[in-house]
C-alpha cells in the first residue's frame, strides 16, 4: 500500500476549488467534522505545557442532558496531540471532591508518571493539581483515562495522538479520531451494585419459553445441558444497551456525528475504544477497511470488512471512499443490544442508511473452554504441511501455531482425551496450583485452545472478512527477539452469579504479593480464560509481542482480548523498572478484583 499523496497540497487544491472541504484547514484535524444539528469542534491541546482540568459537567447525548465528569469541559476530553521526541508537562487540576487521576494508556514512561493511584503515585487529591512530566518516546494513537474509582464510566477519558519524529509510515489525505465509548445515566456505583445483586440484571436478551416455542436459540436438549451446568449462553455482555447509549466522540446515534471526506481521498481513522464495558464490532457498509496500526504501532496493512475492538485497544485504519455519498460507521456492541452510529459524508447534513442490528450471538461449548476437537487436532498437527498450507496462510485462514502452544495444548488435550469425556466444569486438576480454589472460580476451562485466530463472538458467520489477531504482523522487527527465559501461566477466573472476577481465583483485595519480574528478563505469559466472557487484559508500561506465529514480527500491543474459554499468549521484556498495574480493562471486572500489580526490579535487588 502506498500513501504518498501530499496532504497539504491536496487541501490547498480543495480550498481553491471552493468545495465544502475548503473549511478543513481552518479546523484541527480532529475537528474536521460536524453533526447535522450540533457542530461542536472538539478541542485539541498540544505543545510542551498542557493544562487539563477534571470537573463535573453536563453533557447532551441524543438531545438529553446528563451528568458527566469531563476534561476541559468536554466528553471525551481534548485530543492531546504530541510529537515523538518532545518532552511534555501535563498540569492536571482535579476540581472534584474526591481523588482523581489520569493514566496515559499505552505510553512508555517512568512508572511514577503512569497515573495509577496506589501503584505508581498517590493520585491527585481533591482540588489540587498534579504535574506529570515525561519524554515522548513513541508515535501512534493512544488514550488517557481516570484510574480512580469508576470515573472512567462517567466520561473521564480522551484520545492521544503522537506524530512520529520522521515521516509518518501511514500517509493519508486527512484523518479523523474516532473515540468509541458507552454512557449510562445510572451512576457507575449503581451499575456495580446491580451486578452484585443480580449478575444478569442488564441482560434483556435471555432465552425464554416464547423463543423456545418459536424454535429459536438453543434446542430443549441444549437448554437442559447448559442449565445443568448453570451456564447462560446469552451472557455475552454484563452491561448492555438496556442502560448504555453507545457514543462516537461523545455523540449518540441520533446526534449523527459526521466526519467529512472528499471522494477519492485516503482517510485515516484513529479508533480508540474508551468504553467502560463494551466490546465493539466495527464496520462501514460499502467500504473496505485497511488496518495499518494496532495499539499505536504499525502493522502490515490488512484489508477487512469488519473488526472487533476490545475495551482499551486502538486501531488505525485507512478507508478510501470513492463516491460522493454518505457512509454509516456502525459499531455494534458485542451482544448486539445497541450500537454507536456516525456518518462519513462529503458534506454535513447527510445521512447514510444504517443497517439494522444483527441477532445476538449465543455462547457455545468453545466459549466454555471445551475447545473443539477439530481445532485442537489442527493445532497439534501444525508441523504437517497440510495443516496450514501456504495458500491457506496467505488467505489468512490459518497460521502455524507457536511451539509453546503446541506443547501446552498437546498436554491438556491428551489428558482429557484419555478421560471418558467427563468435561467437569470445575476440575482444578487441569490448572496449575497457583489457581486458588475459591468461590471466585465458577468454572475452569477443561480444554482451552488458542483463539487468536478467531474473530470473536458472533463474527464467525457474518459472511465477510473479519480481522483476527493472527492477521496482525508488525512492520518493524521486534526490538527484543530473545527466547523467553521462562513461561508464566495466568488464569482469568470469575463468577457471574456473585459477580466476582480475579486472576488465579484471588481478587486484588485478597492477593498478598505482586507478580515479580527481573529487569531485562524476557518472559512468556500465557493467559487462560476460565470464564465465558472475553477479557481485555492490559499491562501497564510495556508493549508485549503476541505469540501468534509471526516470529520476530509479532504484533506489539498493550492490551490483548482473551476470548471466552480460550487462551492468548504474549512474550514481553520486563524493561521498565517499577510497579505497574495489570488488569482486565472491563471496568467492573477490574473493580470486582481482576487486577494485579506487576513489579520489575533490578537483578539481585530484594525490596
Amino acid at each position: 500500500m502506498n500513501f504518498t499523496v501530499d496532504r497539504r497540497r491536496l487541501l490547498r487544491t480543495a480550498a481553491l476549488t471552493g468545495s465544502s472541504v475548503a473549511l478543513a484547514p481552518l479546523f484541527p484535524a480532529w475537528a474536521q467534522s460536524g453533526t447535522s444539528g450540533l457542530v461542536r469542534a472538539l478541542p485539541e491541546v498540544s505543545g510542551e505545557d498542557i493544562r487539563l482540568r477534571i470537573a463535573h459537567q453536563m453533557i447532551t447525548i441524543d438531545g438529553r442532558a446528563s451528568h458527566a465528569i469531563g476534561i476541559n469541559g468536554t466528553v471525551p476530553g481534548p485530543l492531546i496531540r504530541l510529537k515523538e521526541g518532545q518532552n511534555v508537562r501535563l498540569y492536571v487540576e482535579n476540581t472534584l471532591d474526591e481523588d482523581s487521576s489520569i493514566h496515559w494508556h499505552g505510553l512508555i514512561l517512568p512508572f511514577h508518571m503512569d497515573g495509577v493511584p496506589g501503584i505508581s503515585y498517590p493520585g491527585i487529591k481533591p482540588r489540587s493539581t498534579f504535574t506529570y512530566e515525561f519524554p515522548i518516546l513513541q508515535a501512534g494513537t493512544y488514550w488517557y483515562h481516570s484510574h480512580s474509582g469508576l470515573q472512567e464510566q462517567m466520561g473521564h477519558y480522551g484520545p492521544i495522538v503522537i506524530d512520529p519524529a520522521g515521516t509518518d509510515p501511514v500517509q493519508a489525505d486527512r484523518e479523523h479520531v474516532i473515540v468509541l465509548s458507552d454512557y449510562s445515566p445510572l451512576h457507575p456505583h449503581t451499575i456495580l451494585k446491580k451486578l452484585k445483586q443480580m449478575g444478569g440484571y442488564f441482560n434483556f436478551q435471555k432465552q425464554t419459553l416464547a423463543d423456545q416455542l418459536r424454535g429459536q436459540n438453543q434446542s430443549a436438549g441444549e437448554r437442559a445441558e447448559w442449565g445443568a451446568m448453570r451456564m447462560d449462553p446469552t451472557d455475552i455482555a454484563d452491561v448492555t444497551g438496556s442502560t448504555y447509549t453507545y457514543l462516537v466522540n461523545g455523540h449518540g446515534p441520533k446526534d449523527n456525528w459526521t466526519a467529512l471526506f472528499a471522494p477519492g481521498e485516503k482517510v485515516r481513522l484513529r479508533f480508540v475504544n474508551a468504553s467502560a464495558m463494551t466490546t465493539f464490532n466495527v464496520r462501514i457498509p460499502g467500504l473496505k477497511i485497511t488496518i495499518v496500526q494496532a495499539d499505536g504501532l504499525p502493522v502490515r496493512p490488512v484489508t477487512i470488512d469488519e473488526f472487533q475492538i476490545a475495551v482499551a485497544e486502538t486501531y488505525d485504519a485507512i478507508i478510501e471512499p470513492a463516491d460522493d455519498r454518505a457512509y454509516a460507521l456502525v459499531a455494534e456492541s458485542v451482544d448486539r443490544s445497541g450500537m454507536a452510529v456516525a456518518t462519513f459524508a462529503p458534506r454535513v447534513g447527510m445521512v447514510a442508511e444504517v443497517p439494522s442490528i444483527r441477532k445476538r450471538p449465543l455462547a457455545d461449548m468453545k466459549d466454555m473452554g471445551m475447545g473443539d476437537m477439530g481445532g485442537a487436532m489442527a493445532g497439534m498437527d501444525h508441523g504437517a504441511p497440510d495443516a496450514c498450507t501456504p495458500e491457506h496462510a496467505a488467505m489468512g485462514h490459518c497460521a502455524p501455531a507457536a511451539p509453546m502452544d503446541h506443547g501446552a495444548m498437546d498436554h491438556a488435550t491428551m489428558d482429557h482425551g484419555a478421560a471418558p469425556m467427563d468435561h467437569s466444569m470445575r476440575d482444578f486438576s487441569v490448572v496449575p496450583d497457583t489457581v486458588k480454589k475459591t468461590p471466585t472460580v465458577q468454572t475452569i476451562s477443561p480444554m482451552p485452545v488458542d483463539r487468536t485466530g478467531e474473530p470473536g463472538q458472533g463474527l464467525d458467520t457474518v459472511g465477510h472478512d473479519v480481522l483476527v489477531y493472527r492477521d496482525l504482523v508488525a512492520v518493524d522487527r521486534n526490538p527484543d527477539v530473545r527466547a523467553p527465559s521462562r513461561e508464566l501461566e495466568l488464569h482469568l477466573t470469575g463468577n457471574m452469579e456473585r459477580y466476582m472476577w480475579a486472576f488465579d481465583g484471588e481478587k486484588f483485595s485478597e492477593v498478598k504479593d505482586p507478580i515479580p519480574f527481573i529487569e531485562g528478563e524476557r518472559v512468556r505469559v500465557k493467559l487462560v480464560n476460565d470464564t465465558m466472557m472475553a477479557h481485555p487484559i492490559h499491562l501497564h508500561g510495556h508493549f508485549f509481542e503476541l505469540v501468534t506465529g509471526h516470529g520476530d514480527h509479532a504484533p506489539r500491543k498493550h492490551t490483548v482480548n482473551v476470548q471466552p474459554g480460550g487462551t492468548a499468549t504474549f512474550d514481553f521484556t520486563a524493561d521498565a523498572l517499577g510497579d505497574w498495574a495489570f488488569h482486565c480493562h472491563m471496568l467492573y471486572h477490574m473493580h470486582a478484583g481482576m487486577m494485579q500489580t506487576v513489579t520489575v526490579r533490578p537483578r539481585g535487588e530484594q525490596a
Partner: protein
Amino acid sequence: MIRFALTAMLLAAGAAPALAQHEHHADPDPAPAMQCTPEHATMGHCAIPPEEAPADPACPPEHAAMGHCTPSPAGPVDPQASGTALPAGDAPPPPAPRANYADRIWGSEAMAPVRDALRREHGGASFSQIMIDIAELQVRQGREGYRWEGEGWFGGDINRLVIKTEGEGSFGEAIEDAEVQALYSRAIGPYFNLQGGVRQDIEPASRTYAAFGVEGLAPYWFEVEAHGFVSTGGDVLARLAASYDQRITQRLILQPRAEFNFAAQDVRASGIGSGLSDAEFDLRLRYEIVREFAPYIGISHSAKLGRTADFARAAGEDPTGTSFMVGVRAWF
C-alpha cells in the same frame, strides 16, 4: 513436567543456574542455545541470532516476505527461529518483593493509605440487597389474608449478614405466623452459602431457635435452601424450599415454588406434629416492569400432613387450603 522441573530447581536453590544450563543441553537440538543461552540473553550479554531464510516447506521465503505466512519452527529449537517462535526456557521466577516501589519516589506515608484503599476498592467492597420476595393479599375460602417473605443481605462477596422474615395472617385477626432470622452467611463455593444464626418466632408462640443451613443455586437453575432449627426447648425442626424462574418472555416470569417443613417431635404449642408437618406449592406469575418491581398473581396449595393435620382437625381447622394471591415482588 515444566512445573516439576521448576520445583526441583527451587529446591536446588543456589545450583539453579547450573541446573538450567544442564537441562538446556539435554534438548535434542541445542545449536543456538550453545551460542546464546536464555540466561545470557536475559542478562543482555547476547541476543539469539536473528531470522534467516526460513526452511519451512509450508512457508517458502517468497510468501513469508510478503507477510502471507510465517515459517513454523520444525522442532522445539529451530536454528532459524526468532522472537516469539522460540520456545520458552524454564528459569525459575524471582521471589516476589512487596509492591512498594513507588515509596522510593513519593514516600510510604503518602503511598500506604492509597495502596490500601486501592486494594480494598478492587474486590473488597461491601454491598447490600433488600428483597421483598412476597408481599401479597390472599383469598382462601372466603377469608382474606396476607403474607410476606423477605430477606436482606449486607456485606462482601464471601461474608454476609442475612436477615430474613416471613409471616401471614387474616384480616381482622391476630397475625397467625411471624418469624425473623438473623444469620451469618459465608460463601462455601461458587454457588452455595453456609448459614448459621438465630430464628425468633413471634407468632403463634414466642420461641427462639438456633438456625443453620445452606442455600444457593443448584444445577438447572433451581434456587434451593435447607435449614435446621433447634429451639431453646430442644425441639428440632427442618425446612426445605426450592423455586425456579421460568422466563416466558424477557419480563414475564412464572415461578413455581415448593416448601416442606419437618419436625423431629410434636410441638403442641405451635400445632406441629412430628414428621413431615406441612407442604406448600405455589405458582406466581410476575411481570417485571423493571427488574426491581414486579406485580404478580398466583395460586397456592398448602397441606398440613400427618399429626400436624390431626392437630388442625382437632382444632376445627381445615388442614388443606388453596388460595389465590395478588402481590408484588420488589427489591433494592
